[in-house]
């Protein structure tokens, strides 16, 4: 039987090609997205991780206990300690560092890869005995030697068009610095190579910027070969001033970092995972469809085998062997193709401002298992079910007629199952319309409802095919005989038509739903932001740990045309077990720059010990005006009592909690600093004003000046990720459904060889035959699109009510343009898919009709 299977695989090359292609593409999408998911999370991890390899111990200053004096002239990590450590037995090398963060301006004045404090590294170039720093090999110029010099890493120099000799503008936290670029270095630090920047100064300058003169922030020790780590740690501990410095092993630090980084990058894995899930679903679908069609097309052949004496089991086994062979070959090809997909995806998805970090492809076990699972597992399963059905058919029955119309009982069962699913899904979704918020339970219900809806659509599609295509079939009917024949051909096997259309249906539903929700949410956020905004400009530090130049508020207030420049201090408020963002404001100027909609209380009474909270916070923690709450601001340890004096509708400028500026500044991460300036002008909104504001802040790369439009756009910023996801899904869906339609049409052309021959013989020309096949493809595509659009819009409407509970300004706003484009794209997919089968059909000779085969 194995030989029969092998013969079979080789005998029908075109059929084989289509099947292999289907499986290959399915596997490629699944593997590609999985490899991409793992690679990108590895790259994200690398982008946030320091490499601890080779470091035996790191010496760091000990955090002073609360209440102890902190300003005792810097930490204990000074040059004498470095020398003492280097002299210890077992210590092979000592690398003192001064670590900090600096944001650079590119040659054109824009911030270079800014916005991520952990990726904009800065430090000291500490020459060793040979006069160079082994961590940073120079590739051009020389090491920094003076306070007004710096070197940068090669990647940043290239990206920012910076050359040796240029003057570079940069900022570490407060004021802007200008330094001459004297050299370019290489680094293996993954945080930098993944898309960060590195600026190095001479030791004294770095110490002044990031520590205190004469002191380092850490000292890395490497151990001599054969040294016992425990002994070394003991030796080192003896040298350290016990109360002011501590040593941590490299491995412990790496483990600690891994935990932190996992926590930090968890969010990044979500999107690729959704992607991989969709790919898996659609890919499996394609394979199942292909094999179902393939086996039903071979019913005659199977019947013949049965007629000449093959047992059912032999027939099934032969089909399974064939599926295994195809699956193995296609999985291998698909895996290779998947690696290509994975390496192309980061560039495709990096359309936003925040590019994905670069890194090598990570090929774990999961993609390999998935490749085999999808490629062989799904293929064999997909072959097994229809082959069992085929083997059950009495031999003579199958020989008589090629087409086996589904029994009425089967259709009825399908209809009942579909309706039950539909009712369950729709019921679940509709039950959510009263929901007040997007809680996890509600979201899960929404997801389950959508999944049920999709399942119902797949189950009901064959039954809907006839009425829907009949109803919409007036259109192709107008295209003359070719159109009418095309419509009838699409209806001939509704199950097959539905199966072909379902990939398109599912992807259209997903995309349409996401598009509607995305657009509605985006518009709601825009409106909400615009409603709450009366400032014309916001000047803010790029990272929350940085601060504006203390001189900036006055300089900005002095800019002509500026009426109010309200300073806001940002910090965190820890309360009720969660961290909220708090904006420290002056109640006096607040109403000039923010339009706050208080549901109770007012902003006037904000002051020391008196805060106002947003709707979301109030709901989550059961607060209302007059409530007392224990909370702490910033990094301090002490909880204080606060009184809630007002509750306002969510406002992106106000953030979660409003407090008095002096109080927030006192307890913030950088005491006494200001993070934002909300600027109200006398109507002098212009490019010139924006430029003057930028100048007033010293053109610091740390500072961003945003106008209303940017602010409003930013408020809806989360939507852009959704859009990226949407287009990715759309692309996957389009390619796979293209293939599915090609497959179905190729088969239907092959089955109808004689019919097409008759048409040619009695006078249909080649163009007519081509038109017929094309219209059939477009009809199938249109059917899938129509159902998908309907399902997607319904889902979006139902899920949208959840969003409505959370967002006051939410209204359903279908993006008609996008939806029209989506429909057009689907129809084009259909037309494209028809190209090859149509050409093949047109090339058939009229003699095919009279041939007796």
């Amino acid at each position, binding site marked *: 039987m194995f030989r029969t299977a092998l013969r079979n695989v080789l005998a029908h090359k075109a059929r084989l090609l289509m099947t292999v292609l289907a499986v290959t593409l399915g596997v490629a999408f699944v593997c590609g997205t999985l490899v991409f998911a793992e690679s990108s999370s590895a790259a994200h991890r690398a982008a946030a991780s320091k490499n601890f390899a080779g470091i035996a111990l790191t010496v760091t200053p000990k955090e002073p206990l609360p209440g102890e004096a902190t300003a005792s002239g810097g930490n204990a990590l000074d040059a004498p300690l470095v020398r003492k450590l280097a002299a210890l037995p077992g210590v092979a090398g000592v690398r003192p560092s001064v670590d900090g963060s600096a944001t650079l301006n590119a040659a054109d004045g824009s911030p270079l890869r800014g916005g991520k404090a952990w990726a904009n590294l800065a430090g000291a170039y500490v020459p060793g005995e040979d006069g160079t720093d082994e961590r940073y090999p120079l590739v051009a110029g020389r090491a920094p030697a003076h306070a007004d010099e710096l070197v940068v890493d090669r990647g940043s120099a290239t990206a920012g068009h910076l050359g040796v000799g240029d003057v570079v503008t940069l900022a570490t936290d407060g004021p802007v610095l200008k330094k001459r670029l004297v050299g370019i270095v290489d680094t293996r630090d993954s945080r930098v190579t993944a898309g960060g920047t590195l600026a190095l100064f001479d030791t004294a300058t770095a110490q002044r910027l990031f520590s205190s003169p004469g002191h380092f922030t850490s000292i890395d020790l490497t151990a001599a070969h054969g040294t016992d780590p425990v002994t070394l740690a003991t030796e080192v501990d003896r040298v350290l001033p016990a109360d002011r410095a501590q040593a941590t092993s490299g491995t412990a630090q790496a483990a600690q970092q891994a935990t932190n980084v996992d926590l930090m990058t968890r969010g990044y894995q979500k999107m690729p995972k959704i992607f991989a899930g969709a790919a898996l679903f659609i890919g499996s679908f394609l394979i199942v469809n292909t094999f179902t069609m393939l086996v039903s097309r071979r019913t005659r052949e199977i019947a013949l085998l049965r007629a000449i004496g093959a047992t059912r089991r032999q027939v099934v086994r032969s089909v399974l062997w064939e599926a295994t062979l195809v699956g193995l070959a296609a999985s291998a090809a698909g895996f290779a193709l998947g690696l290509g997909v994975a390496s192309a995806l980061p560039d495709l998805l990096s359309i936003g401002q925040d590019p994905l970090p670069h890194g090598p492809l990570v090929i774990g076990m999961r993609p390999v298992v998935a490749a085999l699972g999808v490629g062989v597992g799904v293929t064999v399963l997909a072959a097994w079910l229809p082959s069992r059905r085929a083997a059950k058919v009495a031999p003579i029955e199958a020989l008589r007629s090629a087409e086996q119309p589904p029994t009425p009982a089967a259709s009825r069962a399908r209809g009942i199952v579909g309706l039950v699913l539909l009712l369950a899904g729709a019921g679940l979704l509709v039950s959510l319309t009263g929901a007040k918020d997007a809680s996890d339970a509600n979201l899960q219900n929404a997801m389950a409802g959508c999944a049920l809806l999709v399942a119902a659509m797949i189950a009901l599609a064959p039954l809907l095919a006839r009425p829907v295509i009949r109803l919409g079939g007036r259109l192709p009917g107008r295209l003359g*005989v070719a159109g009418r024949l095309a419509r009838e*051909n699409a209806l001939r096997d509704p199950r097959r038509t539905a199966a072909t259309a379902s990939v398109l249906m599912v992807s259209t539903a997903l995309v349409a739903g996401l598009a509607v929700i995305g657009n509605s949410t985006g518009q709601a956020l825009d409106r909400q932001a615009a409603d709450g905004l009366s400032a014309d400009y916001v000047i803010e530090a790029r990272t929350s740990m940085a601060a504006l130049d203390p001189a900036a508020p006055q300089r900005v207030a002095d800019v002509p045309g500026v009426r109010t420049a309200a300073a806001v201090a940002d910090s965190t408020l820890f309360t009720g077990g969660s961290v909220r963002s708090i904006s420290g404001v002056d109640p006096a100027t607040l109403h000039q720059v923010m339009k706050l909609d208080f549901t109770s209380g007012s902003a006037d009474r904000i002051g020391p010990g008196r805060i106002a909270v947003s709707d979301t916070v109030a709901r989550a923690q059961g607060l209302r005006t007059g409530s007392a709450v224990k909370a702490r601001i910033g990094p301090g340890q002490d909880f204080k009592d606060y009184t809630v004096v007002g509750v306002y509708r969510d406002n992106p400028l106000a953030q979660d909690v409003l407090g008095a500026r002096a109080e927030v500044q006192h307890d913030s991460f950088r005491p006494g600093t200001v993070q934002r300036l909300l600027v109200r002008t006398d109507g002098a909104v212009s490019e010139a004003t924006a430029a003057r504001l930028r100048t007033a802040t010293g053109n610091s790369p740390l500072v961003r000046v945003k106008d209303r439009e940017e602010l409003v756009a930013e408020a809806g910023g989360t939507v852009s990720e959704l859009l990226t996801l949407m287009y990715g899904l759309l692309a996957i869906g389009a390619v796979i459904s293209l293939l599915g339609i090609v497959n179905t049409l190729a088969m239907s052309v092959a089955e109808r060889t004689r019919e097409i021959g008759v048409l040619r013989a009695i*006078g249909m020309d080649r163009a007519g035959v081509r038109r017929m096949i094309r219209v059939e493809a477009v009809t199938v595509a249109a059917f899938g699109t129509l159902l998908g659009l309907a399902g997607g819009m319904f889902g979006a409407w139902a899920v949208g009510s959840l969003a409505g509970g959370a967002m006051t300004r939410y209204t359903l706003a279908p993006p008609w343009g996008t939806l029209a484009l989506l429909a057009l794209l689907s129809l084009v997919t259909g037309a494209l898919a028809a190209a090859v089968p149509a050409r093949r059909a047109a090339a058939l000779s009229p003699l095919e*009709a009279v041939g007796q085969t």
Partner: protein
Amino acid sequence: MTANSLTAQALYPEPGVAAAATDLCKVYGSGDTRVVALDRVSIGFREGEFTAIMGPSGCGKSTLMHCAAGLDAATSGSVRIGTTELGTLDDRRLTELRRDRVGFIFQAFNLLPTLTALENITLPMDIAGREPDREWLDRIISMVGLADRLGHRPAQLSGGQQQRVAVARALASRPAIVFGDEPTGNLDSHAGAEVLGFLRGSVRELGQTVVMVTHDPVAASYADRVVFLADGRIVDEMLRPSAEGVLDRMRGFEPRPRTP
């Protein structure tokens, strides 16, 4: 009349000739696998005549019909339908010629399963975008006795009924000539006799020209003339044939060894 006079007749177009082939050769393959299916065949089909082409399997009778009907291209020689020389036509013109001036009846009926009987009958005219001649159509339909079956799909019709639909389809557009390829091959003798009756009726009453390939002497006996083909050549002809006469004549050819 002999084979020679037929050849002479085919050499020039005549008003009374619906279709004619002259020196028609059809060769398949080359070298060792070269097979001559038609060897310089010349034949004419008069208007209003029912011709049967007979011969043993592989004698080239189907090839002759395919070439004469414009379904297949001849290797050399000429085919005319009316005054149109087929060899000079491109695929589009050839398609139009088949659509407008030729009717076909196939052994396997070859109706389109998705269309009703009536839609199948008017299909060639629908393709051409022409309105069928109602009166003529009604006459054809009543002749083949399908008036009460017009809304049925082919799957709901018996074999004989399907072939009657095919006959109606072939006649509906008033073609210059109708070709039948073993039109009774898939039918029982009763249904076959019916179909042959309609074909003969169309010749007698409507003046249709019909050419039919068959190997059934009974079917051939319905024709006005039987042409015998063997090894790619016309070897004999019989006018006003009877089934027994045809059978006798056939017995005469069959034992003959194949000549290259």
